[in-house]
């Protein structure tokens, strides 16, 4: 009796894997996402998935990928855990037969990229910023990497009169590689790095790091942190007596909630997505996003929205040539097309080294609001 039940269950499970509810059906094209759906970076996972899901809805309403429905499958890297990321990549490939993954965070993306050739994948990263993501086969970055933003904000710090600085960053590729590039740039400018403080992925208390930074008496503090933690670091810097300027390359509205008045005056360099822009592509995206989610999109939502369209364009082009949608073919097609429509306005062009050229600007928090200070590139 039990053996028969077990056999029926096993057969059912095998059949389920072959059904649309489980794996990719014949009339579907699955695109995977590797996001922070739990843990400290859950906010990122939410907005990034919203951007991609909105794009998928629109694409399907327009007829999908050559008549096939575009399906988004989300994997959770638990806010940067490499082990979780690699296991989720395996799941997305083996269960959903995806050949393209929209990834996020630096460490998970680096880990997924290492598996890309073997699993015949192409990756598009719209969130991770580490210089370690540059020049990697089968990886395209649609977010400005920190070799651009970190050096841009240091230039601002230099122009503000800072000559010595301390850096605080997360102990992962996003922090370590950024600090390396930033340190070299600062030395070239003629400045001196007095201290580098690192923190663990699960850290929420930075009081000791701040004490060391204050003790070093730098002209400026640069926080290469992100997510909710970025606001906590800024708040604790002020709480524990650091009174100098604080620079960064990240900002979320919730950082203001966390840091309160302590974040006032904070300067940061960031991809310049302007939700108030009157550019037709931007306005259309923003209106659709507001209608769907009752909130304004940030640049993360924009990046994953347009990255989904980027993959759609590459897939449709391959279909027209009668080529299969393999990771290798998609990678080659993206390399061939290079220039894609962008909701930042106009187009975005992917470079040979897998990075992108996009508008970058320096912002400052004034009266609790992100305020444009100056545009760095157009």
């Amino acid at each position, binding site marked *: 009796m039990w053996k028969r039940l077990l056999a029926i269950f096993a057969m059912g499970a095998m059949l389920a894997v072959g059904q649309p509810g489980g794996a990719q059906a014949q009339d579907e094209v699955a695109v995977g996402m590797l996001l922070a759906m*739990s*843990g*400290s970076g*859950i*906010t990122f*996972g*939410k907005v990034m998935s919203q951007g991609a899901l909105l794009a998928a809805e629109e694409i399907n309403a327009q007829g999908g990928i050559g008549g096939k429905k575009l399906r988004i499958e989300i994997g959770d890297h638990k806010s940067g855990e490499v082990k979780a990321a690699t296991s989720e990549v395996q799941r997305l490939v083996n269960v959903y037969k995806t050949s393209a993954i929209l990834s996020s965070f630096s460490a998970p993306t680096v880990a997924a990229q290492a598996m890309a050739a073997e699993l015949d994948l192409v990756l598009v990263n719209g969130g991770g910023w580490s210089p370690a993501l540059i020049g990697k086969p089968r990886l395209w970055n649609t977010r400005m990497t920190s070799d651009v933003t970190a050096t841009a904000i240091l230039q601002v710090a230099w122009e503000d009169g800072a000559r010595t600085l301390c850096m605080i960053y997360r*102990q992962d590729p996003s922090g370590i590689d950024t600090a390396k590039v930033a340190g070299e740039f600062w030395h070239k400018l003629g400045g001196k790095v007095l201290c580098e*403080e*690192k*923190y*663990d992925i*699960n*850290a*929420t*208390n930075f*009081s*000791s*790091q701040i*004490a*060391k930074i*204050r*003790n070093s008496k730098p002209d400026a503090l640069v926080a290469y942190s992100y997510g*909710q933690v970025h*606001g*906590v670091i800024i*708040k*604790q810097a*002020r*709480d*524990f*007596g650091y009174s100098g300027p604080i620079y960064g390359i990240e900002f*979320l*509205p*919730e950082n203001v*909630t*966390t840091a*309160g008045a*302590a974040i006032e005056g904070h300067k940061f360099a960031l991809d310049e997505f302007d939700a108030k822009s009157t550019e037709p592509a931007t306005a259309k995206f923003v209106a659709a996003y507001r209608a769907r989610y009752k909130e304004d999109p940030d640049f993360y939502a924009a990046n994953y929205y347009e990255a989904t369209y980027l993959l759609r364009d590459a897939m449709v082009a391959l279909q027209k040539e009668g080529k299969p949608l393999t990771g290798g073919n998609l990678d080659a097609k993206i390399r061939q097309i290079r220039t894609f429509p962008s909701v930042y306005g106009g187009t975005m062009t992917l470079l040979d080294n897998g990075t992108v050229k996009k508008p970058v600007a320096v912002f400052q928090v004034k009266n609790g609001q992100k305020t444009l200070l100056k545009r760095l590139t157009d």
Partner: protein
Amino acid sequence: MDLLLQLLLNGLILGSEYALLGIGWAIIFNTTGTFHFAHGIVYTAGAYGAIFCAQTLRLPLPLSIAGGVLGAVLLAMAIDQWAYEPMRRKQATSMTLLITSLGILIVVENLVPIFFGTQSLRVAEIATVPFSIGPFFLTNIHVWKIGVTWTLFWSLLAFLRYTRPGKALRAVGSNPQMARIVGFNLRRIYLLAFALGSVLAASGAILEMADTGAVPHMGTMAVLIASMAVFLGGMGSLMGAALGGFFIGMAMSLSIWKIPSEWQLTAGFGVLVLVIAIRPRGFLGGKVGKAEI
């Protein structure tokens, strides 16, 4: 020298925070023997309960804080009544209870963003006021953290030592079978332990929310630190749990005086491993016996 003294002050703040976590978890573990991982979600409920009362119900701050604590207590008692107790009746092993507790933590923690969103939240009425004492810096919230922790700790010790329900808690923690035979109602005592532990957890969570903001996953690290504090201090000892938590916080703060900051968390766990290797029963576990609270 200024740096060392500031790190000591930071250690006092962090150590107090961790001591509060340890005491709250210890009162439940010592009394009921339940490895209460779901304490993490009770902790989270304290912070979000206060936020809900302040922002949605528009209650005054003291009532919002009371609401957060009450919400956490009710959640913990509900978990014990409807999740743990039915399993205890079926003679479930402590490992089964542990897995159940972990499951509750994961499930409920993932429900939090559905109701409150993923972003960091704070009660706006609680203002942070930084100030300095000579060259040393801290805020009003840090003073509250230290004050609340040690006030609650000594109050709890007095409750356990001088009141009838407190003595009942100690008796049940010491020998539940004997306590039942002499007429103690174990269900009531267990619920009391969960309620007391949750008051401490919620107090810590509300202070943490006031300091750095509440996020859905805030309870996971809290319960990890709490259990570390209990093992370091010695199972069965409330004083040990306080000492363990305080020691971890102080070690994490002072460790980066001379070593790079990326080793901070390692230092905290390293202390635990070292102490357990030398004294497997923790700081006070060997001296005061299993259920001395």
